[in-house]
């Protein structure tokens, strides 16, 4: 069986004064459908850079990526990112309302043709209408066809955001609420691999548990998830990878979850760096 995502020779070097500083080099990594992998490591070790490299968002990274056996070159960058979707640590919500913020992905041209494998763009109604860049057209047109209010409501409720009305302006939300709305936005696009960068960092235990529960459910439906986490293990993940000194430990062999001492080391590392914000978002 081919892995969902296979990454080989992943390297990332940040430009620094007088040359380049290698963050990691020649990493390999494999993720299967339906598994949740935790990624930990000291602050600044390049965890976010690793995730953005997988999503083809990192201009300083290189490597060979395949998704279900198809090489990255067979996708446009946009098609790849709808399947391998990075969720940044910093939740940015656009638009006038929470509903509009959540519908943003469905206003994008890549979801217009319906050929991206995600079952969300089934209506051919808008197909091919966005060939030309639209300067004047507003963002929200016909997107309610793609994603109705009820679906958004169900997702928000499941994430413990039952108190967030859909017509609420996004800038009224607290940090934890924004993080969950951003998570809802990405989950509703149904990527094959979700790369979640410390989504639960700003949440209390209760809500972090709700986030873990919904991720577990998504994984049961086949979504693979890599989470950068600094919290104690919550039992949702099947294994933990540790990125430190440019190397990835607790590696891939099978679902053996790495050895216990690696797990322990991971969480020791994690708690030491606490909620410190990594500066590696190159």
């Amino acid at each position, binding site marked *: 069986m081919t892995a969902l995502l296979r990454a080989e020779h992943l390297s990332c070097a940040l430009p620094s004064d007088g040359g380049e500083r290698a963050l990691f080099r020649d990493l390999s990594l494999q993720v299967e459908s339906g598994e949740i992998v935790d990624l930990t490591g000291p602050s600044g070790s390049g965890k976010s850079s690793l995730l953005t490299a997988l999503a083809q968002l990192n201009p300083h990274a290189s490597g060979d990526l395949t998704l279900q056996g198809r090489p990255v070159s067979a996708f446009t960058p946009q098609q790849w990112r709808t399947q391998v*979707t990075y*969720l940044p640590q910093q939740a940015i919500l656009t638009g006038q309302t929470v509903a509009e913020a959540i519908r943003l992905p469905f206003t994008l041209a890549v979801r217009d043709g319906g050929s991206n494998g995600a079952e969300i763009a089934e209506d051919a109604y808008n197909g091919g209408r966005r060939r030309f860049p639209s*300067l004047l057209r507003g963002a929200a047109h016909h997107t309610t066809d793609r994603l109705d209010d009820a679906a958004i409501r169900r997702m928000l409720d499941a994430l413990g955001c039952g108190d967030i009305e859909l017509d609420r302006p996004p800038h009224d939300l607290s940090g934890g609420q924004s993080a969950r709305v951003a998570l809802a936005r990405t989950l509703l696009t149904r990527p094959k691999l979700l790369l979640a960068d410390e989504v639960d960092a700003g949440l209390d235990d209760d809500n972090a548990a709700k986030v873990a529960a919904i991720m577990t459910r998504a994984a049961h439906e086949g979504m693979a998830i890599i989470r950068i986490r600094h919290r104690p293990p919550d039992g949702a993940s099947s294994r933990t990878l540790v990125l430190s000194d440019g190397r990835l430990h607790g590696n891939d062999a099978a679902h053996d979850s790495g050895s216990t001492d690696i797990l322990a080391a991971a969480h020791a590392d994690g708690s030491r760096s606490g909620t410190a914000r990594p500066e590696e978002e190159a």
Partner: protein
Amino acid sequence: MNGGTYYPIDVWGLMAAMLMVAAAAAVSWRMRLGIGRTLLWSACRALLQLCAMGLIIGFVIRADNPWLVALLIVVMLGAGVQITLSRAKGVPRGMAGPVLLALVITMLLMLTLVAELIVRPTPWYSPQLVVPLTGMLLGNSVSALAVGLTRFFESMRERRDEIQMMLALGATTWEAARPSIVSSLRLGLLPTTASLASSGIVTIPGMMAGQVIAGGDPFDAAKYQFVILAAISALTLLADTIIMLLVYRRCFTDKDQYLMAW
């Protein structure tokens, strides 16, 4: 001119105007506003540049040679590019080509539409019409381009997290850059639309004023002024749009990744 009276300005008039600037500079120096020196310096520059331009245009009109007109326009375009680049702050290198292209396209359109289709001078290259037209268009689009470029790259820097988020969700570079493009177009066009709306009520635009002072028929001058204002607004928007289309990709790699530093 249409037989009206024309009142020329002599050397004493120039000196009186300079004296006014000097007085303003002195006041600014007393109040420690810190703009006196700039004001004086700019006034001297303006005096020299305008007199030089006057002499040159006079020479070109008398010579009545299309190549000379073309040469003058090329020099004006070069100066336009240089001024745009020196005014635009925080933009990447290599903007000269796109700026020149935007200015050339709009200038050619201006000359084709306004000079050759609307006014139809004889000879067709009439320097008396073509040179001032080019000057007015360039003056407007140069500041619009400088403001537009500055605002665009500033906005792209401010929105880096938003851009990264949009790209992550599958946005094209155009979709991710669009809000910055819109905001820079709006800002670049603001003075133009404002002058369009206020002309005739608050201000008598420079060109109309000039024609009236020179003894021309005010209604004719008004028609002329409208044609010029309308053309300039449309072409300034066009110049700004062209430059945005040419440069927005600078913020991305060929794999559609956002670049922090350009």
